[in-house]
């Protein structure tokens, strides 16, 4: 046996995640063959015969990887990609194309596609790309969860604590803070300790990093 088909070791196997694949191709045989194959490899596959069909069924909450044909009657793959971006539907996209020229590939990748597979691709190539895509899905999911947690922590802070942490992160000492806010050093210390605990920060640099992340995702 020269190669085995489904035995890729990857993060997805260790993660409890639904491996959802959306296959959009106007060729019925391809939909049939690929969905059959991918299902045999443990993926959940949903097929659509056109971009319009997919858009009709899709909502912002869906998650997973999309196998997308570029050349279709009606809306093309690139057009669907742009539309998804517009609707903030966060899918990882792998293009599958009958003839991929450089220009089209560049455009697809620039717009955030993971890969572009030229038909006919080997099953190995397909699975490798899917694995890569799902690792990104998971990473994104993890990040998403991390951000959720961060958001929750930040929201649990009182107004006073938020104010104190803001100044701490800006580099002010407790004394400076106390003078400015007209309270005792001790009060500041209590707020600061409580805030750090709520944010789950173990040290000042950890607090700074978490606060920066909050700023990044726009909570502050």
């Amino acid at each position: 046996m020269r190669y085995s088909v489904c035995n890729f070791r990857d993060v997805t196997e260790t993660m409890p995640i639904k491996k959802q694949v959306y296959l959009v191709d106007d060729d019925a045989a391809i939909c049939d063959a690929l969905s059959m194959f991918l299902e045999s490899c443990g993926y959940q596959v949903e097929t659509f015969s056109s971009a319009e069909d997919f858009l009709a069924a899709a909502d912002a909450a869906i998650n997973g990887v999309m196998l997308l044909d570029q050349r279709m009657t009606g809306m093309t793959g690139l057009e669907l990609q742009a539309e998804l971006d517009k609707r903030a539907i966060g899918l990882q996209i792998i293009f599958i194309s009958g003839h991929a020229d450089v220009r089209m590939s560049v455009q697809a990748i620039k717009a955030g596609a993971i890969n572009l597979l030229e038909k006919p691709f080997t099953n190995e190539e397909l699975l490798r790309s899917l694995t890569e895509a799902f690792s990104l899905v998971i990473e994104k999911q993890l990040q998403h969860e991390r951000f959720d947690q961060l958001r929750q922590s930040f929201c649990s802070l009182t107004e006073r604590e938020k104010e104190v942490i803001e100044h701490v992160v800006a580099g002010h000492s407790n004394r400076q803070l106390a003078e400015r806010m007209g309270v005792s050093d001790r009060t500041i210390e209590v707020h600061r300790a409580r805030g750090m605990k709520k944010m789950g920060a173990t040290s000042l640099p950890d607090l700074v990093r978490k606060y920066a992340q909050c700023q990044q995702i726009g909570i502050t």
Partner: protein
Amino acid sequence: MTQQQASWLIPKFASRYGYIITGVLFGVGFVFFDALIDVMIFNEGTLSEQLLHPSRPELLMRLSFLVLACAFGAYAFYASRREQAALEDARDAESRLEVLFDSAAEFIFLIDAEGVILRANKIVFEESGYARSEMIGNHIKTYFTPDSRQVCECNFPGLREHGYNRADIEFVRKDGSIINMECSATAVEDVQGQYNSFLIVQRDVTERLGAARRLEDSERRFRAIFNSTYQFIGLLDPQGTLLEANQTALDFIGCSNHEVVGKRFWETPWWQHSTSLQTRLKDSIAEAAQGKLVRFEGVHVNSTGQKLVIDFSLKPVLDENGKTVMIIPEGRDISERKLAEEKYRQMQQEFAHVMRLSTMGEMATSMAHELNQPLTALTGYCGTALQLARQQTSLPEGYLDILERASEQAHRAGVVIRHLRDFVSKGKNEMTCVALNNLVDGVIDFVDWELRDSGIEVVFHRQSDAHEVFADKVQIEQVLINLVRNSVEAIRESGISQGKVEISSRVAAANMIELRVADNGPGVSSEMAGVLFDPYRTSKEQGMGMGLSISRSIVEAHNGSLWVDKERQQGALFCMQLPGCD
């Protein structure tokens, strides 16, 4: 003459002085007459005795005088009568001459040695409008034009020398109009044999000169046409001897007339570069001599060594009996036309070549796509089969291997197709900065050949600022030709009388140049608009349905786009955007 005059001296003398002499003689005779009476009456003896008597000699003398006087008187009478008759004769002749002189149709002048008019005949005054008093005594040159005066002065010495001369002069009437006259002058000799007067006879030749001049003018005009026409023209006798060749033909070989006239035409420098052409010409002349028009093309070399294609013909000129009397050889330089034809043919070949390549490329692309789909499905099915097979415990020997090989071969087929497609569609792409105005001009030149007499007008709304696109010129030309041709064919089929195709360009967003081809044809139907660019779709009976599909492929390969404007109400509008050259 002198002798004759001398012999007349005596009678002339007699006629004038005869009577006086006779009177004197009688007088002398009568003085001595009484003595004679005396003798006759009183003397004895016979009269003769007494007269001859020696003692009286005076008697005989007296008698002699009387007799002499009688004789001389008679002669004088005779002579005077004769002269009278002669004078009358002369007067008659003079008056006859006068009549003749005045009734002559020519101008007749008698002038003296200096040229002063002594006499002139009646018609001079009638014709010229001058009165007798205005002319007589004036120099004859007064009545000539300045040119003629000069002619007159030049000829006068000759006239004096030889006694005769003639010249054409222009006589000016009193009203200023001019009579062309042929003038002949004859010297009139005087007694001493000197020419001291001249008889000038002038004949009105205005009519004759006019005819001659018209002939001359017509000849000159004919010569001008003959010599300055662009064509090479000559004249041959039926045996092929060159009688004439025009200047254009002579210039072609750099020869003068006398070097070629009289030679056999095929031996002249026009034909010497090719023996086969010489033979052909010889045969053709023989054919033309039979009354046939012969025409053939040949390559000739001019005096600068340039090779030119000449359309040559031999046209026989027949007399009323149908016999060939002359042959007119004629040559036209058709090198430029040949060149243009050649260029057009080449362009068409190139077009066909590009079209073929594009068609192959497009077919390969569409075939690759069509084949890759099932191959992809095949690979998928094989993969599934492998998965399922692997879960089985008892499988025939090599079963998995076979499935794997099947999958591999499907993939290989894909690679083969890809290589084929790459090979065909690669072609030779020569991407450069192309001035759009030049490109469109070239296309219009090209289609103009086909649009002659079609009544369809192709207009280019030229932009003053020269747009440049980054493109393979030949390929974009093909696309544009294709679009224009589509428009033209659509107009033709719909039978619209004043067909018009308009090409314009503008700068579109983001450094893209847009080229628009609009027509006033029937336009694109809405159901056709959706599939217009798909391969094998066509509304034309003879179309392959590849044109627009290929065009779009070409434009897309240039990172551009090609579409039909679906909003347009009247006619069709195709837009092509290409990246600008910045």
